[in-house]
């Protein structure tokens, strides 16, 4: 069939028009979706894997905050719409989630639990120019990379290491310590910083043991602990392995103090470890359950009413992260990501987790760490806290 030149021209023109229209429609939809009446915010958190429970708690905290903000009129008249993506606490999955969120046209990302997942996603959000508010990930490597759009709601590894070092030297007063991590970014960060803080102190620190995060059997490590006669154990990994570790430690008859970092603080740890969780300690920035005051009580009540469960350790961080974004956008008077980032750097408000403001590198100011103890299956403030 011969096609005449005229037909070619008409055909080409039609195709070009269709492409332009579709292109306009698509980009129009993306920006319309974000700027017409909704504020699209991405939430990248672990929905599957060992840390899924923490992800749910963060998501619920953010949903609560978003609903409250929307009920009060939204952000500059725009309703917040949250889009959840699974990062599975895994670098590769997190990158995929970040790319997906950016391609959907989110105007900010508020979420994140694992630093190992947050790290490779940082450049993706930075390239898109959107605020990257990490609500729970707190490895100091996240702020050292130099991205201008990263903000950590959870105080960083350096402060946690100081708290832990103070606890081991001034409160527990042990002679030797074994530190174990699970080779993930945040765990290695806390472990190394704690080891550095304890160098030259009265506590002798053995080499840091790196346990693969799929390991369920700790018997060889426990044999090492027994042979070394370690005075205490500091586990900086996550809660599923923490429960296994303490169970096997106690079954083998070792009763030395077992301290975890904040990644192991979760009701799952208490449930899985059962009676062996009693008497364990944990370092964490102020915990949701201990917040007092009208704001905290209101949060507690509405959380329970909507989700029929206790807020998790990081629900308040999700809540504050959402409010940080909303308040910054209101202060900037615009939803444009660049302006919101600038406003976040100048932000200061009173959130559930304390005074929320950020250092120039994005790390959290105004919050501090405490030591918890598990008593009768509940997290409580340890009776003796390390000196400030």
């Amino acid at each position, binding site marked *: 069939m011969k096609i005449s030149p005229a037909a070619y021209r008409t055909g080409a023109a039609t195709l070009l028009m269709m492409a332009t229209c579709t292109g306009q429609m698509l980009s129009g939809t993306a920006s319309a979706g974000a700027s017409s009446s909704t504020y699209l915010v991405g939430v990248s958190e672990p*929905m*599957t*894997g*060992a840390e*899924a*429970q923490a992800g749910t708690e963060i998501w619920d905290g953010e949903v609560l905050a978003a609903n409250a903000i929307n009920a009060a009129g939204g952000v500059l008249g725009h309703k917040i719409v949250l889009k959840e993506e699974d990062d599975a606490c895994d670098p590769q999955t997190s990158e995929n989630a970040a790319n997906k969120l950016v391609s959907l046209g989110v105007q900010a990302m508020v979420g994140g639990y694992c630093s190992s997942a947050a790290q490779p996603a940082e450049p993706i959000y930075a390239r898109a120019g959107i605020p990257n508010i990490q609500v729970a990930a707190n490895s100091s490597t996240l702020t050292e990379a130099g991205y201008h759009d990263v903000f950590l709601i959870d105080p960083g590894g350096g402060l946690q290491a100081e708290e832990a070092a103070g606890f081991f030297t001034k409160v527990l007063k042990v002679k030797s310590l074994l530190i*174990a991590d699970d*080779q993930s970014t945040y765990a290695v960060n806390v472990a190394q910083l704690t080891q550095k803080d304890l160098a030259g102190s009265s506590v002798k620190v053995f*080499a840091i*043991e*790196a*346990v*693969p995060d*799929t*390991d*369920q*059997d700790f*018997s*060889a*490590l426990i*044999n*090492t602990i*027994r*042979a*070394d006669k370690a005075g205490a154990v500091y586990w900086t990994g996550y809660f*599923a392995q923490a*429960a*296994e570790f303490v*169970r096997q430690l*106690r*079954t*083998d*008859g070792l009763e030395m103090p077992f301290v975890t970092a904040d990644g192991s603080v979760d009701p*799952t740890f208490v*449930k*899985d470890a*059962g009676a062996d969780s009693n008497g364990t300690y944990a370092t964490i920035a102020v915990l949701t359950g201990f917040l007092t005051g009208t704001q905290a009580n209101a949060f507690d009540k509405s959380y329970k009413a909507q989700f029929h469960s206790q807020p998790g350790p990081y629900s308040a961080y999700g809540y504050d992260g959402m409010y940080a974004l909303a308040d910054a956008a209101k202060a900037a008077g615009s939803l444009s990501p660049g302006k919101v980032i600038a406003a976040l750097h100048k932000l200061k408000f009173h959130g559930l987790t304390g005074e929320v403001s950020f250092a120039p590198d994005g790390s959290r100011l105004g919050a501090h760490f405490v030591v918890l103890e598990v008593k009768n299956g509940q997290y409580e403030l340890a009776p003796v806290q390390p000196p400030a």
Partner: protein
Amino acid sequence: MAWGVVIPDVVAGLFLGAFFALVAVGYSMVYGILRLINFAHGDFYMVAAFVSYSLLAMVTVGTHLNWGNVIWVGLVTMVAAGALAVCVERLVYRPMRRAAVLSLMIAALGVSQVLENGVLNTPGWGSNYLAYPVTPPSNGFNVASVHYTWTQLAIVIAAAVLIFAVYWIVNHTMLGTAMRAVAQDRVAATLMGIKTDRVISLVFFIGGALAGAAAVMASLYYGQINYLMGFSIGLQAFTAAVLGGIGNVAGAALGGLLLGVLESVGTGLFGSQWALLFAFGALVLTLWLRPTGLLGERVGNRV
């Protein structure tokens, strides 16, 4: 390096190796009879753990451990896991008998994904680490200041009994002879009057049942189950089967125990981060010196 921990680590490794051995025997037998590396085998283990979790949760009051319950739940789980294995064989592998080996492996990977995501999406199971309903008591005995529980001893004995039973079936019964015949030459076996389909199904059943037993014992001891737990054990059991000589029961059992010991001793001597390197390094060395594994048959050239 802490040499003082070597002996306790060897014992710990033998205990860990008991689980590897149970799963490795199933892997090995399936490979022996079909030349198929069933990557879904670890997931039979995982599904069995969840099934036993639900059964025990139904009959357990509080956290009180009733050994009678544990035993009958264990037996039911073994049968269920065996049945699952047979189903998978009938539905997925049997129609593909004449397919290329690579296609079979990919089908096995597919089955693995189906099982994992099936458990992930089942209400009541899901993505969280679930705490096993019962915790075994920790009373036991001390040997050289290391505490061992009666439960650990019971688990090792149970595993040994099961593996020995399978070894006896394969090497000293007519059924076992049929299995070995099918493994050697399927067509000739059919010509000899052996119902090869039934024999293959039975091998899958035994493999699945062993994985089910391992699942109940490991869940009881470690107290935690998760929908991805099959991956780690599957990989290590496969390695153990290869180390010991894939295709025979004794080899798989030996490989499992050896791998457990290598990992534990590696952790004790070099630190946890070097344990897997040590274990797999030993695997590579073994295969370099004995390509068919420690107890593997010398594969001659057929003229």
